[in-house]
């Protein structure tokens, strides 16, 4: 008698049921959709839904549904035609603050979507797109930091009216040459007081008394980290301009950034956009004249320039720039320690700090504006030819009253919310001088190749799968059919796990699935051969089944664990394509153990287990 306890059947049914549900979204395909997101990655307001609905209604386009998330909203449409029409209309009607992109929304029925079941993510090699790996030049970033400190050190010494021979960069340090030991002592005292990021050391030159200053290791690390984050922010802003539906921008290692843009084929444009620049400028607000008047009449006072705030209202700013992005060291959103209000703390370098102090001492009670300047690449069609141009876009992102004179470190308060504070800090950082970047790896897959890869990948999975099914059924008869059931369940479970984990399916990943299909039957082959052997040794069918499963188990476990070791190593060391292969291979090993051992045993027990006397096994 071979019977399974009910809980094992329950486990089987639950696992397979969950697997089926989570694998299901992959068969429904996609709805054409239009994606709307903020150009700067800000959160969307809920009332956008009614606004978009209104726009589409007035143009007679019927949307199937609108999925709203703070990061982005998806408008589902019936067909590709209305998709492109809707995109064109929305692009015209919505302001420049929004990105309207074509996308595909999974057409999963609502009840499955409620379970957060989503289809597998296709890798760039399957859906087409661009992959860039960018290296942030940390050496240059460090030199930039040192240069900032050189200026600061000079300023500090000048403010103390200390005469120095020179302040210069010497490899990774700043060296200040002074004329007497007393001067040096004063210098070290004031530098230590003003610039606590520096580690000081006295060194004697041949004729001079030197101070050697290095940037504190922790701070240097922090600065590099900031440089990288800043570059990621900048890249994210740039990528939003491209209107890519689901870009990936991630840090990789200490000094690298991965940028993946699905669906983009014009790599030349992508590279231009990623390389474009932004900066910020601090300018005093012209409080004497009325900006609305100037906007209406077009007469702008000679010492001022007309700008616009983010909400579109005009503002007059002085022609003189107080400080620019080059001077900006950092901008961080947080909370004011005294009032608890959201704020943004800004640090400027030496030059910026001096000019800021000069300006603020004379302008207490006046406002100061921050202008965000971008060079956006654009493509226009002139006489049927594509012309690439860059457009300078300027906009005032903040105008706050100066309460008291300040220099290199100050905070902006009076911001509406913590979100607003973090948005301002983000824009300020995006405008700061970033460390230079270089593309060190590019992989672009055109849409036709992507489609070919999908077709060929799936074809080979299906052909391989069917071949194995046939061999097993012919060779092991009833037991072969049971193994085939397990193999099918295994495929469903792999797909379900990939979907649940949100893992990306790549072409090597498909190869991993194919290989798993071939190897998954090994467990069944081992068991069945063992059962045959037991039968030949004169055992009864029932005990042969039991012995077959029991004796084959340790072999299967050992064989699979060792393969799993290889797969895990592959995952740890592999990048890109190798990782995809390792993921499907490891998942396949785990699921095949389950389906081939517990799954087939359950079915075999159902067929033979209840009968008192089994004359022969169809094996």
């Amino acid at each position: 008698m071979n019977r399974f306890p009910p809980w094992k059947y329950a486990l089987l049914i639950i696992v397979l049921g969950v697997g089926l549900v989570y694998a299901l979204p992959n068969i429904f395909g996609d709805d054409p959709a239009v994606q709307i997101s903020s150009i700067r990655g800000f959160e969307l307001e809920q009332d956008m839904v009614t606004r978009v609905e209104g726009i589409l209604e007035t143009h007679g386009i019927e949307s199937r549904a609108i999925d709203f998330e703070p990061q982005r909203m998806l408008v589902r449409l019936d067909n590709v035609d209305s998709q492109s029409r809707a995109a064109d209309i929305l692009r015209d009607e919505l302001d420049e603050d929004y990105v309207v992109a074509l996308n595909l929304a999974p057409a999963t029925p609502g009840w499955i979507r409620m379970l957060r079941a989503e289809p597998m993510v296709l890798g760039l090699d399957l859906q087409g797109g661009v992959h860039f790996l960018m290296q942030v030049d940390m050496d240059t970033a460090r030199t930039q930091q040192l240069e900032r400190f050189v200026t600061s050190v000079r300023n500090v010494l000048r403010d103390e009216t200390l005469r120095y021979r020179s302040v210069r960069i010497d490899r990774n340090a700043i060296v200040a040459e002074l004329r007497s030991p007393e001067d040096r002592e004063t210098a070290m005292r004031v530098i230590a007081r003003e610039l606590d990021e520096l580690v000081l050391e006295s060194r004697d030159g041949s004729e001079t008394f030197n101070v050697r200053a290095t940037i504190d290791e922790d701070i240097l690390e922090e600065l590099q980290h900031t440089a990288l984050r800043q570059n990621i922010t900048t890249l994210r802003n740039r990528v939003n301009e491209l209107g890519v539906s689901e870009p990936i921008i991630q840090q990789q290692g200490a000094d690298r950034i991965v940028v993946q843009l699905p669906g983009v084929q014009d790599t030349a444009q992508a590279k231009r956009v990623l390389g474009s620049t932004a900066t910020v400028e601090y300018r005093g607000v012209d409080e004497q004249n009325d900006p609305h008047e100037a906007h209406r009449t077009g007469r702008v006072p000679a010492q001022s320039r007309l700008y616009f705030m983010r909400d579109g209202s005009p503002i007059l700013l002085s022609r003189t720039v107080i400080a620019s992005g080059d001077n900006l060291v950092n901008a961080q959103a947080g909370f004011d320690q005294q009032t608890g209000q959201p704020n943004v703390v800004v640090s400027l370098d030496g030059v910026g700090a001096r000019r800021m102090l000069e300006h603020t001492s004379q302008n207490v009670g006046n406002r100061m504006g921050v202008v965000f300047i971008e060079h956006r690449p654009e493509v226009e069609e002139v006489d049927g030819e594509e012309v690439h141009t860059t457009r300078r876009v300027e906009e005032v992102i903040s105008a706050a009253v100066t309460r008291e004179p300040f220099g290199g470190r100050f905070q902006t308060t009076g911001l509406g919310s913590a979100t607003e504070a973090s948005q301002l800090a983000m824009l300020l950082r995006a405008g700061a001088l970033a460390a230079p970047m270089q593309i060190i790896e590019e992989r672009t897959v055109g849409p036709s190749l992507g489609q070919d890869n999908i077709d060929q990948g799936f074809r080979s999975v299906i052909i391989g799968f069917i071949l194995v099914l046939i061999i097993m059924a012919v060779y092991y008869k009833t037991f072969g059919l049971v193994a085939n059931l397990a193999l099918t369940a295994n495929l469903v479970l792999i797909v379900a796990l990939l979907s649940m984990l949100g893992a990306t399916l790549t072409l090597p990943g498909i190869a991993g699935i194919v290989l798993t299909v071939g190897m998954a039957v090994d467990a069944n082959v081992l068991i069945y051969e063992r059962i045959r052997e037991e039968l030949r040794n004169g055992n009864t069918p029932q005990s042969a089944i039991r012995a077959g499963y029991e004796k084959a188990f340790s072999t299967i476990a050992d064989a699979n664990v060792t393969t799993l070791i290889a797969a895990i190593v592959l995952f740890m060391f592999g990048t890109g394509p190798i990782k995809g292969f390792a993921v499907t291979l490891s998942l396949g090993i785990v699921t095949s153990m389950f389906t081939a051992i517990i799954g087939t045993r359950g079915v075999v027990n159902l067929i033979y287990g209840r009968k008192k006397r089994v004359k022969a096994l169809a094996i």
Partner: protein
Amino acid sequence: MDIIKANTNINFMGQRKLALVISAIILAIGVASLLTRGINFGLDFTGGTLIEVAYPAAADLGEVRQALTDAGFDDFTVQTFGTAREVVVRIPVDQAEETGADLSTVVLNALSAQEPDIDMRRVEFVGPQIGQELAEQGGLAMLFALFGILLYVSFRFQWRFAVGAVAALVHDVLLVVGLLSILQINFDLTVVAALLAVIGYSLNDTIVLYDRLRENFRIKRKGTPVELCNLSINQMLARTLMTSLTTLMVLMALFYFGGEIIHAFAFTLILGVIVGTYSSIYIAGNAAIVLGVSKQDLMPVQKEGADDQPETEILPERFRNREA
């Protein structure tokens, strides 16, 4: 249905000297090829730029070369890829070229000036530092995999088996890489993945054999290690052939229907499955025997309570000397 008769008894181990000679000869040729011709490393490891374009009809490679020469390139290769319509242009890393990533744009412009209807299939640019890193990572992965396996097999079986298994794996990898060198197959990242999968597969086979060998050592009263090894191989023959067959089937499907990009991957695995099946019989089994696997090594470990005292007495002479 049976492919192997129930009482098959092929004297595999009788041929083991011959097998070693054959292995040695193929390995020697492979290593010689590795030393003289080297490996045809792909873009992933050498760095450089690769551009694949599809032409509306069979492309004239001469014209493509001319277009590139006119655009100012002098060091490049042009080949068809899969079909005559698809063309791959490879440009090696040029140290002087700072903006390597822009190269592809120039090439695509030059090609589309000559034939406007081309379809960009893929562009790959790998900077020299990346290539170096990928090569290092691949090598490290291989070493770590072998080491992890050595540990696991030592733990589950015995060190002699672990050494035998790793010897078989090194044999497989060397043999396959040697064959790839002889055939000058393009060696890229997917081939590294395939080699690691070969390690996994071959090991799988070896472990299955060892498992049976261990069992036979434990239950059979008579028989020399060579005889028991032979018996185990024969007992597992049906299973070995069956699994190799199904795996080869799906790999064939991948090779013929998976497209050009997956070709080298599938080919490496096909070689690996064949070599791996052979090696688990002749190399892994042989190595364990040569290293002196004996019955005592495989007996279930005695319980803690039983002292070391009586154990030393059952140990055979030669074993005792080695332990001392």
